[in-house]
């Protein structure tokens, strides 16, 4: 089916979404062009390319790209394509090179993408080939910008600049970086690449969905509760794996009171479910490092921020409390890969960093004790939506009660405001208004 603008608009109501948005491959193709081809897409963190010649290979939408550190210290995002016959130049996921070399005919490229050399140059004498033309190099993606070490790129020449695009939601990136006593983050080795059989937007919706944890995660909530009952004396603080599982089972009253904020361009965040201040000795050591770096007052202000998942539409989610970044990589209309990176807060005690690792393993690893039930739900939504049961997905919870303009607060912490906000942006991109 071909989609004209009016048809696209008709797929999204103020409180509902048509099922074709999740299951039609033609709409997925349009999303790759109009959303992933236009928006600012998170690519990687500067600590992944520390030294000159360092690179990582990733993708924007479905297009392979390389993020590299050039000799002059600048970071570049290049299409992973040889300027000669089009072969993907970089085959590995990461590494360090003096220059990139295509495996096919040996063309070489500097780490800023410019063409370095072509074997037997005289063959091009008198032809239209022009060594200085960037098209014969590895082309730079149209726009690249970073915010506090996080590198984004856009495949579109036009559009708002990154700071404007992130808007006030960028305070969640500040929250992540400010928690480092040195004000800097460093990526942890390894990456979880978890695949599920559902449309990318179903995951995005789930990130600020506060009515699912107590239902979907019942099995891991019980695992934490039962383990604690069997092993801990009354009143003992929960060990981290117990906290990371059983907190999902907080009563509805807790989630109702949670903060939910939606921002322009589809971004949103939810309030925290793991209090950032704790009483254990490891936290106290961390607190001392923070106060030494920032002073008492500023430290108080940093730690007063309490957020769980922040979504930057359309492809990345930050969990600032435990330094997790989840990148969405749409593979097909019904298949998505999530790349999960953990970060170390520079200047924080080693033991404090280990809490990040525990979170990574309990929550975000492919063998997470929490995530399989999420993925089961995503996969079932994808399958359920292929039926003719109804054409519409409901996003009605607290609809009509969102307050604000350009930045919205929900009536309750269990509102479906974040999803409605995502579809406000979806329509703008898909109808070519953004």
């Amino acid at each position, binding site marked *: 089916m071909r989609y004209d603008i009016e048809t696209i608009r008709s797929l999204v109501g103020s409180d509902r979404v048509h099922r074709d948005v999740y299951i039609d491959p033609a709409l997925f193709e349009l999303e790759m062009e109009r959303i992933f081809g236009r928006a600012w897409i998170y690519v990687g963190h500067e600590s992944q390319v520390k030294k000159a010649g360092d690179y990582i290979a990733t993708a924007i939408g479905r297009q392979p790209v390389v993020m590299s550190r050039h000799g002059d210290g600048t970071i570049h995002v290049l299409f992973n394509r040889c300027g000669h016959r089009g072969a993907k130049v970089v085959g590995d996921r990461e590494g360090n090179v003096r220059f990139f070399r295509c495996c096919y005919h040996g063309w070489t490229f500097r780490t800023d993408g410019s063409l370095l050399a072509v074997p037997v140059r005289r063959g091009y004498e008198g032809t239209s080939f022009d060594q200085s033309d960037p098209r014969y190099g590895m082309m730079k993606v149209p726009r690249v910008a970073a915010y506090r070490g996080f590198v984004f790129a856009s495949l579109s020449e036009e559009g708002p600049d990154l700071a404007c695009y992130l808007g006030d939601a960028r305070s969640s990136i500040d929250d992540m970086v400010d928690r480092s006593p040195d004000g800097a983050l460093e990526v942890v080795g390894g990456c979880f690449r978890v695949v599920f059989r559902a449309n990318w937007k179903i995951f995005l919706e789930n990130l600020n969905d506060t009515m699912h944890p107590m239902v979907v995660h019942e099995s891991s909530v019980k695992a934490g509760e039962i383990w604690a009952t069997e092993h801990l004396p009354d009143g003992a603080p929960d060990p981290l794996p117990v906290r990371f599982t059983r907190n999902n089972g907080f009563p509805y009253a807790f989630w109702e009171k949670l903060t939910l904020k939606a921002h322009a361009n589809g971004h949103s965040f939810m309030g925290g479910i793991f209090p950032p201040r704790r009483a254990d000795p490891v936290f106290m050591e961390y607190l001392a490092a923070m106060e030494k770096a920032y002073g008492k007052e500023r430290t108080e202000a940093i730690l007063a921020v309490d957020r769980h998942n922040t979504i930057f539409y359309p492809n990345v989610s930050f969990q600032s409390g435990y330094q997790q970044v989840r990148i969405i990589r749409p593979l097909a209309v019904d298949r998505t*890969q999530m790349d999960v990176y953990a970060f170390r807060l520079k200047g924080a005690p080693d033991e404090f960093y280990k809490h990040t690792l525990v979170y990574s393993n*309990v929550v975000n690893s492919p063998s997470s004790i929490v995530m399989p039930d999420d993925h089961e739900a995503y996969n079932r939504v994808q399958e359920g939506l292929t039926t003719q049961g109804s054409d519409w997905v409901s996003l009605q919870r607290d609809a009509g009660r969102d307050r604000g303009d350009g930045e919205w607060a929900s009536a309750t912490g269990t509102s479906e405001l974040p999803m409605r906000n995502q579809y406000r942006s979806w329509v703008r991109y898909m109808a070519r208004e953004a």
Partner: protein
Amino acid sequence: MIDGREIEQFLYREAMLLDDKNWAEWLALYTEDCFYWVPSVVGQKDPIETVSLYADDRMRLEMRAIRLAQPRAFSQDFPTRMSHVVGNVMRDPDGGRGQDGGLAPDADLVVRSSVHILEFRREEQRLFGGTQRHWLRRVGGSWKIALKRIDLLNCDAPMEVVQLFL
């Protein structure tokens, strides 16, 4: 003198308990201070500088077993099935040197073996495989696992969730 056949039987028994999903008896093969480690990159040095697919102490292993027993573990609505084949069992030629992730478990013997794990759930069969190492401690009259490390061939591949023990 260590009886090689006894060690083989011990590993086969572990495989059987995993296939049977007899988590209680499987956990009884492990020491109280055990660690169960599945690296996420080839040649991973430790479970600290790099994230791991599994980096479980006994508590986390027990929590997994409790979860799998819950009637509302939705992702087990169609329960996962597994079949383990263990072979090439030998005393680790390097005594596990450089492989213990810096955990330095108290062990009397390090055994290296190959493992192939066939997994099925709902509509898809998957194959995992690689090299596993067991750091074994003699406790009373029997062997216990102080550390198990499994280096999967596809440790860094994009994969769907893995729910059971490998």
